[in-house]
């Protein structure tokens, strides 16, 4: 079977495709598994009437981006350098940017 390099390549391609296919399967399985914790999170959101995810906690406008206001100094800087790494990963909410929704 593997006496020709083209056979080896074919096998290599197939193994890789299989592995990539497994990613899809894995993602599916984990999605199913996480359903419970999703429901828990949704319950918290519903009970506490939350509007934002807790991903960046370093600045107020990154913690609650949808509820952000404009009284934090420097946050309308183009790169939101007040809190550099997350501030630049997380764009400033559009209503705080000089050109609105662009």
């Amino acid at each position, binding site marked *: 079977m593997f006496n*020709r390099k083209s056979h080896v390549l074919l096998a290599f391609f197939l193994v890789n495709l299989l592995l990539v296919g497994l990613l899809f399967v894995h993602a599916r399985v984990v999605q199913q598994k*996480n359903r419970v*914790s*999703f429901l828990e999170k949704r319950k918290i959101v519903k009970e506490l*009437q939350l509007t934002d*995810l*807790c991903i960046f906690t370093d600045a107020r406008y990154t913690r609650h981006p949808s*509820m952000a206001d404009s009284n934090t100094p420097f946050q309308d800087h183009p790169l939101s350098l007040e809190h550099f790494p997350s501030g*630049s990963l997380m764009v400033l909410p559009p209503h705080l940017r000089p050109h609105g929704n662009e």
Partner: protein
Amino acid sequence: MTMSAFEKHRHVIDFTLSSLLRRKGKNFSLLAVYTFVIFLVASVMFLTHSIKEDAYMVLTDAPEITVQKLMAGRHDLIPLSYMEPIREIRGVQSVEPRLWGYYFDGTNKANYTLVVKKEMNNTPGAISVGNGVARNLLVKENGIIPFKAYDGSYLFLKIKDVFSSESELVSSDLILISEQDFRKIFAFPPDVATDLVLRVRNPRELTTIATKINQMFPDTRPILREEILRTYEAVFDWRGGLVIIILWGAALAFVILAWDRATGLSAEEKREIGILKAIGWETSDVLLMKFWEGAVISFSAFSFGLLLAYAHVYFASFILFESTIKGWSIIYPQFRLTPFVSIYQIATLFFLTVVPYTVTTIAPSWRAATIDPDMVMRA
């Protein structure tokens, strides 16, 4: 495809592979860089996509409309007297005040989100904390946290329970507190709330209701849940200057490397192609070989990069990007994202990486393929 064309491809693949393997050092270093670029781009894509999906799924139960009051363009506390007229609007199911705010813990330099939960009003002095807060303060259930109120006095609140670590994506920095304690800590006037949240019976009426609120109270800003979801969608479409600059820097370096590798044919390679052409290979046969060369390298790099990125984001908790996301926050939510893979992401990744790589190799391949066959005789 006829049988002989198929056999021809196999022959060419045989030869291409031996030719690639003969230049191991060069080709493996190319493969490594290529894989790394794909890995980076794919990691960012997986990460942002999962956060978006999570936001979408978790926030579907967020309040339909949030009403903020504005004062001179700033977020202001909303009078509770606004509630009654809003409740009168047709289609509004309920209106509730929300009391929440940020509490900066000076000793730990961490920022918490304090949220009033009605049920806690019966047990003043007790709080529930997010797992991130507990981790940061090294406290457990029944532990006591001192809060410095705005009048300078101290409040000692007892932890009743801690949120599960699974829920950190929404609860990591939360502290649930009773209304009495909340108003005491912030010296919060009794007749106002942070904002108002509405439940609406018919989703089609959302915009109408929002418009009515806006007409009734021109100093308010109604925020729709759909807008929040859309904004999350837009915000996480990776615009992150840092990430993009790094990625494009890496991509550029890679393209230069690819270009250099592809253009700089060594004398040995030139001679080899010359021989092939002299003994009966046609230009398009050499082009076919170059096509397979690119296909093997691109395919390998693509699948390795994809697999590594998946492992990185979903198994290793995006360790390479951790500091980027963490920023200076003291409370760093530890959440495992739910994996999402789609053909769409893969196609996007293909366009961002394989297409430019392939384009840079076309001309050099052609240049190699059109070497004069009599070159080997003249040399």
